[in-house]
């Protein structure tokens, strides 16, 4: 029994360490790339660390960058736990931002204390709708959410481009010849409270609080239990009387909601207006996909996603310094993020293998016990 306990804690430790190994492997690849590109990896990595943590401002920027990753990562925890793969974070973030911005532009006279929560709610709902549509298509028409969520991203981008160059365009830009596709700046009173002089805003705090709420949702409520049950075994869930289709829609609805909220927070906390360069990344900075990386790295656990998001936020902020210091484009970080995903999902095989082994051992043990007890029973009978 004692040995079993010990091996159990060792496996737990390995589970936690696996993503770290995966990250180290990705970093090793990054170092190799840097050497090939003629840069000193040590110099590059120290520039990266300095860029991300070197000063109060740098640290604040890291947290600001980590905020959308954490929020989107929380949504990913919900959907992936429900075995629904949401690749639509980019689009959901854009729609959330558009809804919140539209509300902010429509009612510039509202007091901040009313507008900020309402705008957050608008973002939340916008993302939820944009996630709920592919959810419903999966649940009721069996359409793969992998593809429909990605298509919804492309549609959201075009919607953004249309709205920012037409109905929502800044009146100043509309009168100019250049017509830069952007909205007017939102009223100053709507800015999320900020820890002056840094750029750190209330959004980071909201995200961390929500991480705890998502933890409670997933493991302490019936809704969370149902989403996870459907994720683990849809057939058994159906027999247990769970409405599987409803859970699938809810998982994507909630997942999208968090991405939408990330969009609203990005506008009200950082940009204070929306502007488009025609692409999704221009607004999201690839957060829709990087949030997946963070959630996977945090083992799809809301609380694990907090440090994971912080780490990837640091990578993104540090990348700019790295680019200046050793002239290696920050795109390197995108490539490394991709590798982290590949390594994390690949290393999962060790955990599965061990679980399988444990299951077999447990069965064997149980059979032996049964055999033993039947023997003693027989012996007792003979007596």
């Amino acid at each position: 029994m004692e040995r079993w306990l010990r091996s159990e804690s060792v496996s737990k430790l390995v589970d936690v360490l696996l993503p770290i190994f995966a990250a180290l492997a990705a970093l090793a690849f990054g170092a190799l790339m840097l050497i090939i590109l003629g840069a000193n990896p040590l110099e590059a990595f120290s520039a990266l660390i300095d860029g991300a943590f070197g000063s109060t401002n740098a640290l604040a920027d890291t947290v600001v960058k980590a905020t959308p990753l954490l929020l989107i990562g929380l949504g990913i925890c919900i959907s992936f736990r429900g075995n629904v793969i949401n690749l639509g974070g980019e689009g959901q973030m854009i729609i959330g931002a558009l809804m919140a911005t539209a509300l902010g532009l429509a009612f510039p006279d509202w007091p901040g204390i009313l507008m900020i929560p309402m705008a957050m709610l608008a973002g939340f709902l916008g993302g939820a709708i944009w996630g709920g549509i592919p959810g419903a298509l999966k649940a009721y028409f069996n359409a793969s959410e992998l593809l429909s969520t990605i298509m919804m991203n492309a549609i959201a981008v075009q919607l953004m481009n249309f709205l920012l160059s037409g109905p929502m365009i800044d009146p100043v830009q509309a009168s100019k010849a250049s017509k830069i596709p952007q909205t007017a700046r939102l009223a100053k009173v709507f800015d999320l409270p900020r820890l002056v002089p840094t750029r750190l805003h209330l959004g980071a705090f909201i995200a961390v609080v929500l991480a705890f709420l998502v933890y409670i949702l997933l493991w302490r409520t019936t809704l969370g239990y149902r989403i996870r049950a459907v994720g683990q075994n849809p057939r058994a869930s159906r027999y247990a009387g769970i409405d599987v289709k409803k859970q699938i829609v809810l998982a994507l609805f909630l997942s999208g909601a968090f991405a939408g909220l990330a969009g609203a927070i990005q506008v009200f906390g950082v940009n204070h207006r929306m502007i488009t360069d025609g692409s999704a990344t221009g607004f999201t900075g690839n957060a829709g996909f990087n949030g997946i990386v963070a959630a996977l790295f945090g083992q799809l656990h809301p609380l694990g996603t907090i440090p994971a998001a912080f780490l990837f936020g640091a990578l993104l902020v540090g990348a700019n310094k790295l680019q200046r210091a050793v002239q290696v484009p920050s795109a390197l970080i995108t490539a490394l993020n991709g590798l982290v995903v590949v390594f994390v999902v690949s290393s999962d095989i060790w955990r599965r293998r061990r679980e399988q082994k444990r299951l077999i051992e447990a069965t064997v043990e149980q059979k032996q016990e049964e055999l033993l007890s039947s023997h003693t029973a027989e012996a007792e009978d003979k007596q």
Partner: protein
Amino acid sequence: MIEQLFTKAVLVGILSSGIRLATPYLYASMGETFSQRSGVLNLGVEGQMLLGAFAAFYISFTTGNLWLGMLAAIITGLLMGLAMAFISINLQAVQGISGIGFYLFGLGMSDLLFQKLLGTVETVSGFRPVYIPWLSDIPIIGEIFFNQNILVYGAYFLVFAAWFVLNKTTLGLKIKAVGESPQAADSLGVSVSKVRYFAVAFGGIMSGIAGASLSIALLNVFQQNMTSGLGFIAIALVYFGGWRPLAVMGGALLFSMVNSLQLWVQVLNIPIPSDFAVMMPYVLTILALIVSVQRVRPPSALTKPFERGH
């Protein structure tokens, strides 16, 4: 203004560029058809295309030889395909997610190499239209179908080759068996992992060529994220075509014709908001996904790793 669309020259132009624009979709979706038929969902097509596009462009640009560029795209695609195969088959990673990893890797890596090795947007003179005696001279038909570059012809040839291999050869039978019922195939002595390796590696090569068709045959430039979602659409087309090469080609053509029309609408300055025109293909894809899934069933073992004795 809309009647401008209905002149002979414009209609021929729309059809001709529609045929041409289908090229990258055809290469990528034929590769993906093979991969999915064998039971592996390769969601990394976009990343493989980007790296293929860069490799083809860079080698063509530096050596001046387009065929060396093609070779570079093929090798790049092969390596990416083998990596995807290893991760899906040996390490049994969740395919929907590992594919996103490959996408991000290709996106970042091609951008990094582009900035480091080229720095600015350059152009190459890519593959030129090939004149086919007699056929190219037929009025209208010749202009639409037989005034294309070699990669365009290759793409349509590939469709028929893919159809032939899948339906008329033992290899095709093995690929389908492995994707439908790996246990049964295994018990008949077919190596599930070998067949899947072949199919996924082939898919990688095709994605590489699809990228090359953009960078050295259709657009003749390389830019960051130049595929902008094309690889994902190619995967959707496989679903749309119900995993059958000819139907996938039908979907690709429908798609590229809509795209071509959209481009001409912009060129002719017809006042339809271009954002909505650009949006149309994606809306169409979602609708197509819904319709096609009601009609055909995906390969039974799609995304399911195979292990003996289960």
